[in-house]
């Protein structure tokens, strides 16, 4: 007999198996990535200089590489950019004409685009665990991440219309890094978000407030005192209680849209923990009441859970701004300037790299007429060497 609960299902997810870390393992992973990339840059630059200066004239080069913190800030900035791009793609100026007939609730459209947006940001964050901005510039990966997320989140728009919305961008610019991106994502495309769970919790709170879970529970909920964002103390009537819950829900939703995506909480906490933590930030006594109402009586679980939520909430509060100020922008410009001098020269032209990789594999995929011939050729090659030419 197979008994499944939510935890079993979550533990079989790739998000848990591949993309969950302790604080230490995550930071050591980032350090290794940074060291590797810096070595790669030095080697590539050295080789280039040797080539231009003749054999063996130059023994070493000193390059001022990005630190892990600088990499993180830069990736964080492009996560914000990815969110803006996803927003921009989903809300063209003719939004009313294009979207409303098929979907009568504008509020729901916003929720839908959020899924693709949130996924794009997580793709970027996951990709840069094993790749450095010094090797692949986040500006280029970001566009591909947004495009890939439209495909994986059932929000597909044709590449042609996607490209048309971006300045100075060709279809090749989007497609060239796609393979690198999917490889960096370890071919896992599913991201488990906390957004739906928040909606479920919100509905459950409303049900309690309206007495649908019994008068006793409702009355306890009415008596909850003031919190940081709710100054009116215990609720006088159901309407006031509902207003309080709606306020908390709105604030939690904003947290999930911004800091939950930009911080590392997805790497350390489950979706349920993340939404409850966002709710905790929005209205602590209300969240504690809610958690307690869901726990068996006399259990020490509540306190343990609240401790976990506090840790997550702390991380959420320390988020980068989704709207960087002048000082922050200045710092980012400095980092980008520094990056200009320490990029890996071998990995800058992704479009050519991608074409070369495909040629190497014996498949060009350029012209329709050639497809049949190409397949035949491919088959013949495969017969000799199923994995392609030696590495």
């Amino acid at each position, binding site marked *: 007999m197979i008994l499944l609960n939510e935890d079993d299902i*979550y*533990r079989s997810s790739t998000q848990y198996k591949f993309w969950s870390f*302790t604080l230490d393992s995550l930071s050591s992973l980032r350090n290794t990535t940074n060291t590797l990339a810096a070595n790669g840059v030095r080697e590539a630059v050295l080789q280039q200089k040797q080539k231009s200066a003749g054999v063996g004239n130059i023994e070493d080069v000193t390059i001022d590489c990005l630190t892990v913190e600088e990499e993180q800030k830069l990736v964080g900035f492009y996560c914000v950019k990815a969110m803006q791009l996803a927003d921009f793609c989903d809300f063209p100026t003719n939004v009313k004409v294009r979207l409303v007939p098929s979907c009568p609730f504008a509020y729901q459209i916003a929720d839908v685009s959020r899924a693709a947006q949130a996924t794009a940001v997580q793709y970027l964050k996951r990709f840069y665990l094993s790749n450095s901005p010094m090797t692949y510039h986040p500006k280029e990966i970001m566009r591909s991440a947004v*495009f890939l997320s439209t495909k994986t989140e059932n929000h*597909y728009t044709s590449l042609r219309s996607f490209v048309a919305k971006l300045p100075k961008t060709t279809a090749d610019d989007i497609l060239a890094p796609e393979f*690198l991106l999917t*490889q960096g994502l370890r071919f896992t495309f599913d991201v488990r978000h906390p957004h739906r769970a928040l909606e479920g919790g919100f509905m459950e709170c409303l049900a309690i407030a309206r007495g649908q879970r019994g008068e006793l529970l409702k009355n306890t909920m009415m008596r909850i005192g003031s919190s940081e964002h709710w100054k009116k103390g215990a609720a006088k009537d159901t309407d006031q209680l509902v207003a309080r819950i709606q306020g908390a829900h709105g604030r939690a939703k904003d947290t999930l849209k911004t800091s939950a995506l930009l911080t590392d909480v997805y790497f350390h*906490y489950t979706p*349920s923990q993340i939404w409850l933590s966002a709710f905790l930030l929005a209205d602590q006594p209300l969240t504690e009441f809610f958690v307690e109402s869901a726990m*068996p009586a006399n259990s020490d679980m509540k306190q343990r859970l609240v401790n976990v939520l506090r840790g997550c909430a702390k991380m959420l509060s320390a988020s980068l701004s989704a709207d960087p100020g002048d000082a922050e922008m200045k710092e980012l410009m400095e980092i980008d300037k520094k990056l200009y001098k320490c990029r890996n020269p071998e990995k800058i032209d992704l479009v050519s790299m991608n074409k070369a990789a495909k040629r190497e594999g014996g498949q060009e995929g350029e012209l329709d007429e050639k497809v049949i011939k190409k397949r035949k050729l491919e088959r013949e090659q495969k017969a000799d060497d199923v994995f392609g030419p030696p590495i």
Partner: protein
Amino acid sequence: MAVSPMITYEQQSDPSPSDTKQLPLRTTSVSSLQDAAIAATQQAQDFAERLNEETRSKYVKDKKLGEGTYAIVYLGHLSRDPSSLVAIKKIKINTEFRDGLSMDAIREVKYLQELSHPNIIALDAVFSSKNQNLNLVLEYLPLGDLEMLIRDTNGIQYGTAEVKAWMGMLGRAVWFCHENFVLHRDIKPNNLLIGADGEVKLADFGLARSFSDPYRPMTCQVITRWYRPPELLMGARFYSGAVDVWSVGMVFAELILRSPFVPGSTDVHQLEMICEGVGTPAETNWPGVTSLPGYVSFDKRSLGARDRNYFVSRFGTAGPIGVDLLMSMLALDPRKRCTARQVLEHKWWSVEPQPTDKQDLPKKGGGMEKMGEDLKRRGGEVDDSRSERVARKLDFGAR
């Protein structure tokens, strides 16, 4: 809900592959990014690339089993154990679809990566070959598919106990998909492959998707026609797991009849056959049906819903309780159709006869070539030999 966040956190504070082993589910070994990072440091190499190469080197491709427009299927084996066979499905990229990785490939990889269940084809690994084609390493299922067994009326004899065993395995697979909020959207006998031990495995997730959010429309151009429920034929854009349950009901009917129950030749003909075989949709048996975008009135020979006696006369071999189950899976109104969970909770499973043990189920061989044939298809596609029911061109752009 109550225990959910707590237990997960304890596990997560020390995530290791061994944690997942306590699951009563299929587990595959997981190489961690950290390990790859250490190895990569020694070799000065991109470690995503290194992980990929590590995976690739675990398998050896042997001969080609089949080739379709969408994929080439190879027989393969583990490098360290030549007797351990796998099927390697190489997805062709950059052929027709100009927008990078195709939607079917994304869907198949995305969902098979998440779903580990004895009755769902196992995706052991994914890697890319040098030319950037995706390779899916799938479990090797050499005994053909359910369709072969149904069709071979001369060579294969089976009864209710066998049907019950197959239906049980199919029911668990579909329940597991829905429990994970995944709609399969292409259930049919030739997507039900059979393992060496007789276990039935649901395959081909090229049309799968997650349950939609409220108010978010989905495409109705899914599921091979004979197995497509009336709401999709009438253009419903908001639907649920009930679409898969209808397909399961159609497979059940086909297992008993040993031929497709309602094999329509066009979409309109399909609806006519459903009216004839199951009943005519009308406001009385399906409130709201007339407001579906593709609603067609079949009033002239309206039969209403077919009654129990009719079903008993055609499917009586399943026994009276089996007929109840079939009728609840083929309810015209998707809201009245039973859910995948209700299918598993049905009392048919506990009445005589007991389902046949999987190792005693009839087998036909099928062989490796048949698996190649089954896996190379694109979702909604059918064998050339049965081209009369080719699904309409799928509109992947529809949301």
